[in-house]
């Protein structure tokens, strides 16, 4: 954990909400992007991020600094997201993203309208497919392929062994591929799960 985070956490634990505000400012975008991909719509993602930060502040004294602050924060956010998904049925809302609402940051380099439409369509397909994955598969996939975390970080974040990360990741990608390309080529798909859970 870097020195700044450590200092801010110490100040926030002492009741300095300004220091905690700085922590929120640092991690809000990263957490929101992950939460958006996990819960599938901007409103719920914003709720998850808010709840996660509030819960994190309330239990900040129990954070021992043994892991990265974001890893700890993500665990809280993930649990919040899962409990929120259990409360309400998942909905996919891409309208806001397509309409260019505040907070939507399209990838750089959109040469023409055709490419933009293609990209938007690709996002729609992928987002819908991600939403259909199980919570476990979605979590590893989002952390690896969207957040760019390493296996070790994913294992620490989700509290599972690295071998399980590999297993779940492969199964998640396979499942995703089946959802976006129904006619998968090159691999004979087994009828039973490929990997036993470790």
């Amino acid at each position, binding site marked *: 954990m870097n020195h700044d985070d450590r200092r801010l956490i110490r100040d*926030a*634990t*002492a*009741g300095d*909400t*300004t220091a*905690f*505000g700085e922590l*929120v*400012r640092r991690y*809000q*975008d990263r*957490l*929101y*992007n992950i939460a*958006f*991909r996990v819960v599938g719509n*901007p409103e719920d*993602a*914003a709720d998850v*991020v*808010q709840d996660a*930060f*509030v819960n994190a*502040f*309330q*239990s900040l*004294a129990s954070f021992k600094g043994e892991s990265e602050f974001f890893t700890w924060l993500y665990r809280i956010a993930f649990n919040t997201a899962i409990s929120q998904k259990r409360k309400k049925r998942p909905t996919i809302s891409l309208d806001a*993203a397509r309409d260019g609402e*505040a*907070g*939507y*940051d399209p*990838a750089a380099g959109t040469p023409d309208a055709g490419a933009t439409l293609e*990209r938007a369509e*690709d*996002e729609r397909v*992928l*987002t819908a497919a991600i939403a259909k994955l199980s919570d476990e598969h979605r979590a590893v*996939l989002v952390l*690896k*392929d*969207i957040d760019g975390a*390493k*296996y070790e970080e994913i294992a620490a974040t989700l509290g599972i062994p690295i*071998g399980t990360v*590999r*297993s779940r*990741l*492969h199964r998640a*990608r396979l499942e*995703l*591929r089946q959802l*976006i390309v129904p006619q998968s*080529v*090159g*691999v004979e798909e087994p009828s039973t799960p*490929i*990997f*036993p859970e470790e």
Partner: protein
Amino acid sequence: MLTDAELKLITAATDGELSLAEERRFVALIAANPSAQVVADQLRGTSARLRQLPIHRAPAGMVAAVLSRLSPTTPARPRRARSPLWLPYAVAASLLFTVSAASYWFFTAEESLGSRTARVRQTLPNISAAPTALPRQPLPESGVAVAPPERDVLPWPREVAVTAAPPPRDIAPMPRPHAGDLIGAGIAEPIKPLQSADLTLPFLKDVREFERDDIRARFAADFANHPAVRIDLFAGHLPHALDAVTAAAKSAGVVITTDHIARERINKKVPTAYALFVEGLTPDELAGLLAVVAKKVADAPQPAVGTVHAYSAGAVEQREWKDLFGRDLGLFRSPRVDPKSPARPISDGTIGKLKQAVGRHPAKAGLLLTYWPIPARTAPQLSKETQAFLAGRGERKPGTLPALLVLRPAVK
């Protein structure tokens, strides 16, 4: 057909998470099984598509929204594992039992030891009267069976050290002589009956009374020499009351800055208590402001503002205002004057600074904030409006009375 281990290997290779040994195995696998290359390409393609998804950033105001939900108190300390409720009672009972048993054993053991010593003393023969040597017996003749000599019933006792009995002990020491302590001692001097008592009655009026000259004069006289005043206005209808107060303040020449959280809650008509801090008004002008509020709410069928409670701001308000504004406003400190330094003429630079200060801040300024519920209060450090207001504050003008007007719902 690829095995589980091979598929894991390909997944790790796609993500660049192979060890050296695994990398060698992966190269061998690709060379031996062409379908492994196909799977690796597919996985890589899927990952690339996911990585190209646009990044969604947190909506603006996330920080403020989170902070507004935080309790102003320190985060809770981790709770220790809760011990069962009966544990303290069990510990106390076992302690009591142990002490009782030990006391019983101690006293009974001492008692029995004393009686045993006495008994032994009684059974012991008188050593001084005992013969110094045993009586000589005749030797038996050889080949003749001789019965053993008759012996005393008890064998000759061994020598026993007899100690003197301990002197009788008192059961407990005598109590100490009683000297008066804080609780038991009597009162040094009898309390004299009260000769007089000063009572400060609260300035509690119906807002309509501020239309009277004598009430306004009394308000001005009561608070003229105080550092600041707090005025609670109990509103029957908060939005109307807020309109009346802000309009009255504007008519008194106050330029109001509204914090963004307050503005948002006003626009959304969220039930909220508001605080309007005004500076630059004299006590007379404040009384006049309240008179204008009275006029504005008089026409409404249900009075928007009922009771007005005004009181001098003290230490409690000082702390509360510090939380509200994020810093001490300096209203409660008397100006620091160094008696050693003689009065100096004002330099041109100081005059320039004064002019600049006067130019950047209106003479009568106000800041409207959310007051209740507490979690809806803006974190002052994050409020641009609050920071701008505080940055623009100048020196307090003589004769003015800073005031915090709190609009709160009347209890029905």
